[in-house]
């Protein structure tokens, strides 16, 4: 009798957690199994499995002429966007941490790119960069940067280099709100007397920022950085809407490349997915080991 009741007490949490575990299983874990399985299969155009394919999908993928350049581009894409985003956000957070009339309204303006769908933001910039009538080009023409509307120079998205630069700009633009807010909440957690102590010690505001604020912001910056790395690594709508990864694959990151491959060869696309997924796992492990999530859970 006692043991039976004890067993029921032990299993009770499963009743509360069961639905969540089931949902994670169906949506997150099982797709991983299907994906790994597909990466070893030959899959026809209609999605039917033709047969086991050994490691042929991977071999073919590694021999794709664009494979290495796509991975390198993804690395540059992630590092540049996250680094610039965090740097600008540190400044913006400092600005919006000050007291001034209308602060609440300006903070609302700041969240718009975060709340709006990234796809729409990408389309606005695609329009604004239109070589003939786009707003950004019209302004650049007025101030003399763009010599001639409709020229090759005005066709920013037609040239891989300038297209990537503009798309990185859009990615930074949509990443700024969350990052700024994360750092702002870190700033709000720093007690005022820390600054008073620093100012009595004669520290200038810049010195006290480097010596006091920045170290105390470390946890907030760390988490914001890692969440951004995951988001930017998986980012899809910006490149999809603005260049489709083209010309060729010259502006494609690994996620775009995977989606493009899916239209031709599902098996090979699955093997690209697996590689993407392994890269995410590495990032997640770094995330879990650098953040002290366990202390938070155990308290």
């Amino acid at each position, binding site marked *: 009798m006692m043991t039976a009741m004890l067993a029921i007490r*032990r299993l009770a*949490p499963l009743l*509360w*957690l069961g*639905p*969540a*575990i089931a*949902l*994670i299983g*169906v*949506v*997150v874990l*099982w*797709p991983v199994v*299907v994906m790994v399985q*597909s990466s070893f299969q030959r899959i026809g155009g209609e*999605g039917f499995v033709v047969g086991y394919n050994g490691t042929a999908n991977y071999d073919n993928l590694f021999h794709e002429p664009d494979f290495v350049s796509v991975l390198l581009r993804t690395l540059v894409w992630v590092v540049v966007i996250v680094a610039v985003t965090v740097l600008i956000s540190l400044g913006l957070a400092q600005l919006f941490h*000050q*007291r*001034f*009339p209308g602060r609440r*309204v*300006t*903070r609302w*303006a700041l969240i*718009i790119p975060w709340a*709006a*769908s990234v*796809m*729409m*933001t990408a*389309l*606005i910039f695609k329009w*604004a960069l239109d070589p*003939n*009538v786009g707003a950004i080009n*019209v302004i650049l*023409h007025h101030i003399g940067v763009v010599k001639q*509307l409709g020229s090759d120079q005005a066709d920013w998205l037609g040239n891989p280099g300038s297209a990537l630069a503009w798309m990185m700009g859009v990615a930074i633009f949509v990443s700024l*709100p*969350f990052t700024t*807010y*994360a750092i702002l909440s*870190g700033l709000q957690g720093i007690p005022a007397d820390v600054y008073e102590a620093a*100012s009595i010690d004669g520290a200038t505001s810049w010195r006290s920022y480097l010596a006091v604020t920045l170290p105390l912001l470390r946890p*907030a910056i760390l988490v914001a950085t890692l*969440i951004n790395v*995951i988001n930017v690594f*998986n980012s899809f*709508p910006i490149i999809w809407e603005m260049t489709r990864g083209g010309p060729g694959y010259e502006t494609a990151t690994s996620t775009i490349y995977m*989606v493009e491959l*899916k239209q031709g060869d*599902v098996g090979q*696309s699955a093997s690209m*997915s697996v590689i*993407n*997924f392994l890269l*995410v796992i590495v*990032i997640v492990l770094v995330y879990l080991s650098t953040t002290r999530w366990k202390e938070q*859970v155990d308290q």
Partner: protein
Amino acid sequence: MITTTKPAPRVRAAASAAPRVRRPLRTWIVAVAAYLVAIIFLLPYLEMLIMAGRPNDELGDPTILPKHFTFSNFTTLWSGSGLGGSIGTSLQIAAGATVIVLLVALPAAYCTARRRFRGRTAFLLLVLATQMFQPAAMLVGIQREFSNFGIPPTLSLIVINAGFNLAFAVWILNAFFSSIPVELEEASMVDGLGRVGALLRITLPLAAPGIVTALIFTFISAWNEFLVALTLSLGQQPSQQPLTVAINQYIGEYSVDWGHLFAAGLVATVPVIILFAFIERRVVSGLTAGAVK
């Protein structure tokens, strides 16, 4: 307005009266800088409004502002292409995902906040890990799983969006439940409310801000989701596709119907921006709760 509200003992300020004069000026410099930043963040979406109201015959003019403003893009949006149907599909997906997330996350968050049991840490780790995985990383697996079972796209998208937003809801609700004292529940149980009564009448109302945040956040991210929606609803009638996908019907191979595109974009964007303003302050804590206190 004065920068510091607390009368802090300022050592250097006592030396001269100059800082008193300078402080309001500094505040205004800060304010102007912040207004400029706010305008920069607003401009692209203002451009969307300008474009949506631009008459078609002025689309080729290289000017920032149109000579006339028209609402015809908004009124013709509803005929033919079936934008109303897409809004309905998106509403179903976003609302369905939100309901599932709440039903699943509430018990899980309550249980992990109130009890210590074996497997609790492992469960929270699993949830934290799913926050780090996005559908893009396992797109092929998701597509093959849901299409092999022949599940209709809308239902698939409800379940998938629920799964990928679960982590946020569990973490923010866990934080709210942890902050409500157990004694409050125990006292109300003594007062004759049962365990369930205490949960419904005391705990849930106190956690309401967290619940609202989880609700709005899930709704918005399901509403805005693009990649899985694009993959699963490919080849369907535009009226049955979610809004983010259906908007792309205005992009033709050789020309883009920018007027309708941006009118539809405004319809898709403005409601979620307003919703987001309600939860603005609490979203960050939900996204980072797993890692920092």
